[in-house]
């Protein structure tokens, strides 16, 4: 059966979980509607919520990227945030007055200032991040797991230190102050920072960014799912399961690992560019080791290697601190008269507990990949799914 059309008919979307396609489409539509309506529902509670959702979308992209590296290919990268930084600073430098202010030659060449469109800057930033990924990955991929983790951590810190200090003698990054006045995103004639009237509505800038970022996050999800269910995805899984056997079966382990690294880096780069445009300024503070750990805890909490799980983990760990900030903090005020544990500490506490708790009690994550089994295989081949008993034992 090598006719792809026939294969699609025999394996309609959703058949992996054994559910009829109509159910899957309905669920997708419901989720889609919810996503569209969300900012309007949350808006009255304060723009902080919509802002939180925007950051959640960014974290989803980051978590999905890290998931390719850690979840699919099994490589623990603790310096992942460096790629985010590369993407962010690339857009920042290409779309702000910084370079023209500090380099007269450039000011001369671009009298109207550097205002590279994000749609051009994103691919540039992504490619640059991918290049860094290959540069970093090439020498270190042969290292064993924990050494790889530490080296990548070191690289991440090196990048941060350079970002913090490359302001003398030539001011590239403006050091700790970071780069400000970054251009917002423009879609056609609509400037997302000052949208005015769009299709008869007057949405706020935040809402428009929300739609943009959520769309990009959904795109990222789609890319990940497609990668996972492909020849490449299988190769990653094989490497994760048994590298030697994978090699013996003809998989060029080194190159495939490198590909995971650079693809993950690309996701980070894209998210970084969007972040810079959204926030309007970037500084080295946003790219610390803590952020790498935050993204890692999102991947781990959700379900290492399982795309929907990772999205869940990212949304939870991005939104929960916001929720806590609005509940636990005032609660402490009410009970104790003052804030004993402020929101920032709560956030760190949450990440720490999440990571340790998950590793000890539910190492596969909150939403791990569903069990393989006879049911799944039969459903794939068109036989009735849920009615068939599942065989094959499975431990927890």
């Amino acid at each position: 059966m090598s006719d792809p059309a026939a294969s699609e008919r025999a394996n309609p979307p959703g058949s992996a979980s054994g559910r009829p396609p109509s159910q899957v489409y309905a669920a997708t539509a419901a989720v889609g509607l919810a996503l569209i309506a969300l900012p309007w529902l949350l808006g009255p509670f304060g723009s902080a919520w919509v802002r939180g959702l925007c950051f959640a979308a960014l974290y989803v992209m980051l978590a999905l990227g890290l998931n390719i590296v850690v979840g699919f290919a099994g490589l623990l990268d603790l310096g992942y945030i460096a790629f985010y930084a590369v993407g962010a600073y690339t857009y920042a430098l290409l779309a702000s007055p910084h370079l023209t202010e500090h380099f007269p030659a450039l000011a001369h060449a671009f009298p109207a200032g550097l205002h590279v469109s994000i749609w051009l800057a994103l691919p540039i930033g992504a490619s640059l991040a991918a290049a860094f990924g290959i540069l970093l990955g090439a020498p270190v991929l042969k290292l064993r797991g924990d050494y790889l983790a530490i080296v990548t951590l070191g690289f991440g810190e090196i990048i941060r230190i350079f970002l913090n200090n490359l302001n003398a003698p030539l001011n590239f990054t403006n050091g700790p102050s970071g780069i400000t006045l970054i251009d917002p995103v423009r879609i056609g004639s609509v400037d997302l920072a000052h949208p005015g009237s769009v299709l008869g509505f007057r949405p706020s800038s935040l809402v428009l960014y929300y739609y943009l970022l959520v769309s990009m996050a959904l795109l990222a999800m789609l890319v990940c799912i497609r990668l996972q269910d492909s020849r490449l995805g299988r190769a990653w899984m094989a490497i994760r399961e048994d590298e030697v056997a994978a090699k013996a079966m003809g998989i060029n382990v080194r190159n495939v690992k490198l590909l995971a690294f650079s693809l993950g880096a690309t996701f980070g780069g894209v998210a970084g560019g969007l972040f810079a445009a959204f926030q309007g300024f970037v500084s080295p503070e946003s790219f610390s080791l803590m952020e790498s750990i935050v993204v890692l805890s999102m991947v781990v909490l959700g379900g290492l290697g399982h795309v929907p799980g990772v999205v869940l983990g990212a949304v939870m760990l991005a939104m929960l601190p916001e929720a806590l900030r609005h509940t636990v903090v005032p609660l402490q005020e009410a009970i104790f008269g003052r804030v004993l544990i402020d929101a920032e500490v709560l956030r760190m506490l949450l990440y720490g507990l999440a990571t340790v708790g998950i590793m000890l009690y539910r190492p596969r994550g909150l939403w791990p990949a569903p069990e393989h089994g006879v049911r799944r295989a039969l459903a794939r081949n068109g036989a009735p799914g849920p009615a068939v008993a599942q065989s094959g034992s499975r431990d927890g």
Partner: protein
Amino acid sequence: MAECLLRAGSVNKRFGGLQALSDVQIQIERNQIYGLIGPNGAGKTTFFNVLTGLLKPDSGRFELCGLPYWPSDAHRVAKAGIARTFQNIRLFPDMTALENVMVGRHVRTHANALDAVLRTRRARTEESAIRSAARQLIDEIGIGRYAGHLARTLPYGDQRRLEIARALATEPKLLALDEPAAGMNATEKAGLRELLVTIRAKGVTILLIEHDVKLVMGLCDCVTVLDYGKVISVGTPIQVQRDPDVIEAYLGRPHAALVRQEMR
């Protein structure tokens, strides 16, 4: 005239103080079932690892189908046409049996990341082909009913078959099996024998390490015997069985002396 499929000579490998392989040579002809036997520790698996690129030899000449190769990378060797199984079964435990075999197809297929993301027609066609080829192999090998089961849940004998199926998926010229009958009962061994004969009939040359003398005698066209890293005998199973050096290696000098006396 049977042509030479694999030729290796002057293969040496030293591990610190131990000379694991000394001047080992082997010549396998197309469509043979070739046996590599010898007492434990003789260097059989080491030689296997060298042939298949998992271990770099100190020296040696290697030729596959007349083309010289240096076993530097296991994946290159697989691509060139040698596929193997492992003494301690190395399946991908948390992937299904079908997926294990599909991984075997990796080396003969081409879809890359871009194809995957864009779901090009080429990618979809290839993916279908991979799936159906794997399905076919699994059915032929006789474990079709386990297609959707996780590899580690398969019964032992079927795990070994799965490993063979996975290796076959790479379309090898030479199938190198490291003790495929280990741990099998008589029935399973008979089944394995049948399977290997079928595989050979399809045009695949087979090299196997085995301890089960009966299996080797009944199956192999030609045998090389290793002891302490050296080749001590080459020939048909019958010739090798009667070779006093081989008897000495397995059973000790007194028995060999008896045989030598008989031969005079």
